Each structure stands twice: as C-alpha cells, then as structure tokens.
C-alpha cells in the first residue's frame, strides 16, 4: 500500500505572524527584515503583496526598496515564530505521531497509519488541517499530499498560498516531470548548472538520464536525485524526538611526536579504535567497515577503507582492520642521516 505523506508549508510565515499584530497592513507590501539602518540588513520574509513587486528573500533592504518604494519594513520577533511553530505542530500531532519538522515553518506528516481514522482520504485531511490552522491561528499554509517525502514537498510548493496539491501514484509523471529540475529537493544552483551542461532542465529529463552517469557526474547525490526524479525516494518520516542513527563514528588524534616505529602506530590505532568501539557499543551499532586517514606533517591526507569480514563493535577487530589498511600505504620514515 502506498504511503500517505503530507508536507505542510506555512505561507510567508514570518510576515504572516507579524501581520497578526498589524491587521491594518494586510493588503500592503510588507517585509520582515534585519536592521533597516544598516545597508547590510536583508529581507527575511515578505507577504504576497510584496512578492508581486518581485521582492525576494535574502536581498538587501536597499534593493527591495528600489523595487517597491512603499514597502513596509517590520523587525523580526523570533520568539513569536517559535511559539506559533509549536502551536502549529501541536495541531499536526492530532493527526499522527509521525511529524518531522523540516524547518520552523515546514513539517512532514506520515498519516498512513491513522488515515482510516481520519476518513481515508489524504486530500480531505490536508484540507481539514489547512482550515483548522486558519481558523485557530489565523495563518495559511500549502499542503502537498503524496506517496513519498520529496513529492509531498513538491506538492506544497506547487500551488501557493492556501492550497492542497495531490501528487499521486497515478498523476505524478504528468505533474512532476515537466517541472524545472531546480524545484526538486536538494537541487541547488551548483547542481542546476552541472545538469544544464547536459541539457537537463526538467525533472523528467533528469529521470531519463542514466543513474550511473549521474553518479559519475555528481557522486552519491547524483544517484539520489535520479531516484527522487523517478518517484523512488523511500525515506521514512522521522518523529521529531527521534534522531537519525549515525552514519559513521570516528576518532582522531594528533600525537606528541611523529609516529616512527610500527609499534607506536599500532598502539595509536588501538587507542583510537578503543574510543570508536566504545562509542559503537554505547549506541548499539556495529561497524561493517573501517576507514583510516593519515595526515602527514606536510598536511596531505591519505585515506583507505575496507569492509570487515563481519560487523563488529570490538576494539581489537577494528584496530586489526585499521592496521591492515595502514600497512598498505604507511612506511616508516627513513632513519635520519640517510
């Protein structure tokens, strides 16, 4: 059964919260910004009226005022944004225990398990959440409903403000593939430029690329983006109190003197492996592989990694694996005077 995931994105969050205290400015172009007396102050958020003047987040106040001389500038109140964020998330919590905040004004909700209690229709749940937030807090949001997190996020961006967009297993190719590739999560300016060199401008064109070629071009991220574009993203929605398990556990030291004899290197590796193994046991993890990095006195890094015969959380096995690796590229320095 396909998952039902919502991505809830508050519309012009900072500006909308400020306007709750200034209802008389509701139709005026308003921006929340840093210190206006400083030429370095930037636009932190803007309302819909300001967007119509082409004002964008992170531009300088000076640039924004050039576009819109009548722009009303308001100082930020971050404690208020945090308070509203808590109140909004408290509403989300009434629909599922799987709420993963992405930022102060965006959250994913996995309602797959509770959907049968909520009427069985993802779009209806999204519409109800929008109506409640509007009624109870006076704020609007856009919601994307889909079968994975990436498409749910695309959905919340698809139509703004105050709208629900469903990207389903049936319609996703029609909706997603024509979109600019930059709309996809984690495709930033650099990735866009790289992809443009290969004529990739839409998500559909990205999906049609060879995954291996993308990986060669952009590393692991290339393969990940290929999966995103083909609707294959499977990341779970993680409840906010659950931290992601570590991907690696490392320990490094600079020693009092250069390590010259093999015995010294072996002892040093044991010390580091002991630290790593202890921490692995503390978090209930096993290592399937080990990596060693050596920085030479002239600041050159040499690194090797290998898969272990079986996963371990023992110092001796990590140290042995590390020593085998180090043996492949470390040579004791020649005796002085040679």
């Amino acid at each position: 059964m396909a998952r039902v995931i919502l991505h809830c994105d508050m519309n012009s969050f900072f500006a909308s919260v400020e306007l709750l205290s200034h209802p008389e400015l509701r139709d005026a172009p308003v921006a929340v910004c840093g210190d206006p007396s400083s030429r370095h102050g930037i636009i932190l958020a803007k309302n819909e009226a300001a967007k119509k003047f082409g004002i964008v987040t992170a531009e300088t106040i000076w640039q924004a005022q050039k576009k819109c001389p009548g722009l009303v500038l308001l100082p930020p109140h971050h404690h208020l944004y945090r308070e509203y964020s808590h109140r909004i998330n408290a509403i989300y919590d009434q629909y599922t225990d799987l709420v993963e905040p992405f930022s102060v004004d965006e959250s994913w909700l996995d309602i797959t398990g509770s959907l049968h209690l909520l009427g069985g229709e993802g779009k209806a749940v999204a519409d109800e959440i929008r109506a409640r937030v509007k009624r109870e807090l006076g704020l609007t949001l856009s919601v994307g409903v889909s079968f994975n997190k990436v498409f749910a996020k695309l959905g919340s961006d698809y139509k703004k403000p105050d709208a629900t967009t469903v990207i389903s297993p049936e319609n996703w190719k029609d909706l997603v593939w024509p979109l600019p590739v930059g709309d996809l999560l984690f495709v930033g300016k650099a990735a866009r430029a790289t992809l443009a060199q290969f004529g990739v401008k839409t998500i559909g064109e990205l999906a049609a690329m060879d995954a291996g070629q993308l990986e060669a071009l952009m590393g692991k991220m290339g393969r990940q983006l290929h999966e995103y574009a083909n609707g294959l993203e499977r990341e779970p929605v993680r409840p906010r109190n659950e931290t992601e398990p570590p991907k690696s556990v490392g320990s490094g030291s600079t020693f009092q003197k250069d390590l010259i004899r093999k015995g010294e290197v072996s002892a040093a590796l044991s010390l580091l492996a002991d630290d790593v193994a202890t921490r692995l046991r503390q978090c209930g993890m096993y290592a399937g592989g080990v990596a060693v990095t050596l920085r030479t006195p002239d600041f050159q890094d040499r690194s090797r990694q290998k898969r272990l015969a079986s996963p371990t959380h023992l110092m001796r096995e990590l140290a042995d694996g590390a020593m085998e690796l180090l043996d492949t590229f470390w040579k004791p320095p020649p005796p002085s005077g040679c």
Partner: protein
Amino acid sequence: MLTVTAIALTDSAEAYEQVDLLDDSGPKREKQEKLESAMDRIRGKYGMGAVRFGALSPEKKEDPLS
C-alpha cells in the same frame, strides 16, 4: 594526525555474520566481547579514563566525524 572511522554502520539486531566453517576465532571473539564489556562497566562506574588498553597518550583529541 591519525583517524580511525567505523563505517557501514548497522543496528546490532541487523548485524550479519558470514559463517566460515574453518574459522576458529569464535572463542577468541567471545573473550574479547567479555573483556570490552567489562571495560564498559568499569568506565560506566568510574569514568572513561578508569581503564584503557596500553597505548600512546594523545596530545590533542579530536572527533571530526561524529
């Protein structure tokens, strides 16, 4: 600077092991498990520095990857 990193981490419950019929490292591993588990208990009670394998003393300890 020397760094050791545990990679390809897996949950303990998911840890697999390729059984090698000729491998006789089982008892040795069990002994090492007991030893390191005892060290964990001592460190839990008396602190991290209470017990350690014989090794060099680090001048500067860094943890760049966690």
